[in-house]
């Protein structure tokens, strides 16, 4: 899976250096800062390649190096109900 979208009933606010996401109306608000924000944006970005590829371009890293951490983080966001797999 190379593309994701916010899960239904999830609020997203991308502001300054952070992305704030919350399952609504229950919450809580989860703050994604730094690399976490980069991965969220890359996951929801309709660009080419894998999420790790797109994130790597933003942090100037090799995608194969960061891929395991990115995939693990994405799985965590999906498990929390914040992110859902989207159409390729």
């Amino acid at each position, binding site marked *: 899976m190379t593309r994701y979208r916010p899960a239904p009933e*999830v*609020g997203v606010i991308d502001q300054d250096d952070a992305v704030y996401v*919350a399952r*609504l109306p229950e*919450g809580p*608000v989860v*703050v994604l800062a730094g690399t976490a924000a980069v991965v969220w944006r890359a996951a929801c970005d309709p660009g080419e390649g894998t999420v790790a590829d797109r994130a790597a371009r933003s942090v100037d890293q090799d995608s194969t190096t960061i891929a395991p951490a990115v995939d693990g983080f994405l799985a965590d966001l999906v498990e929390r109900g914040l992110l859902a797999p989207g159409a390729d």
Partner: protein
Amino acid sequence: MPAEVVERIPPGVRLEMSRAGVQIMANRIGVRLLHIKGAMTDPALGPRIEGTDVDVMVDPADIPRLHRALLAGSWTVYSTFRNNSSFEHAQTYFHPDWGHLDLHRRFPGIRIADDRAFALLWAGHGVSSAAGVPCAVPSFAAQAVLLTLNAARAAFPGSAAERIWDALDGPARKDCLALVERLDAQVAFAAARGDLERYAHRREYLLWKVTSQGGTRTQDWLGRVRAAPTLGARARLVLRAPLVNTERLGHKLGHAPGAAEIAREFVVRTSRGARELGRAAVARMRPGADRSRRTASAPVSAAADPEPAERGGG
């Protein structure tokens, strides 16, 4: 939500999430609501003032269902319709994570029935977004009307009302005035725009004179009695006048008021009312005093009055 996480969330983010959460809650139970004021205002009507709470106007028929859903979602009633403001237009809820929510069943200044007013405002509504969640908002003209009516209860209504009016082009002004007419909101609208004297013959004239220009609590109360649409509503206002607003007193004290505190406040309220009535009687008896009904009970400026009426919240 852990405290350390809450502290990192900017107030504006929390408010926007709260707004989106209320919308999702309403969607789940099929409740129609309109997001009004604050950040949901069309930017063409002036700078968006974020505010500190979420404001929604709810289909009156849906209020009981939304109320139950809010309580089930850990919201508590902070202030009831009856005690929130003298207009009794909004009920305030509080949630430890999401803050305050003002649930409006009507908007001060609108005289037609609540259900008809909501239907008019719902017709032609638009959609805005909060945290990516689509939220229903009133039409541009309806927003202009509501903001103007809201300005009538502000400290300097004229400047805000003129700013809103200046933001409207010819067709939008026509739509705005037509809606004011259909909502029977001409008096409050005129009060906001400094044109209240045109409506000196209307029963709600004194209420909006006091609301927009200031006055004593007694004048405010008299204005409400005169403006009440039915005899029953007038009787209710008269009977409630000396009663203590225990919710407001509790918020002032920081704890639920005890019997002695309520009794003390009761004495303060009745003494204050008696003093104001006494001063008004003396003023009427002074040689040269204008004894016309309207002038005799016309408000004095808030600055000159030691006990100005409280402005309605929400």
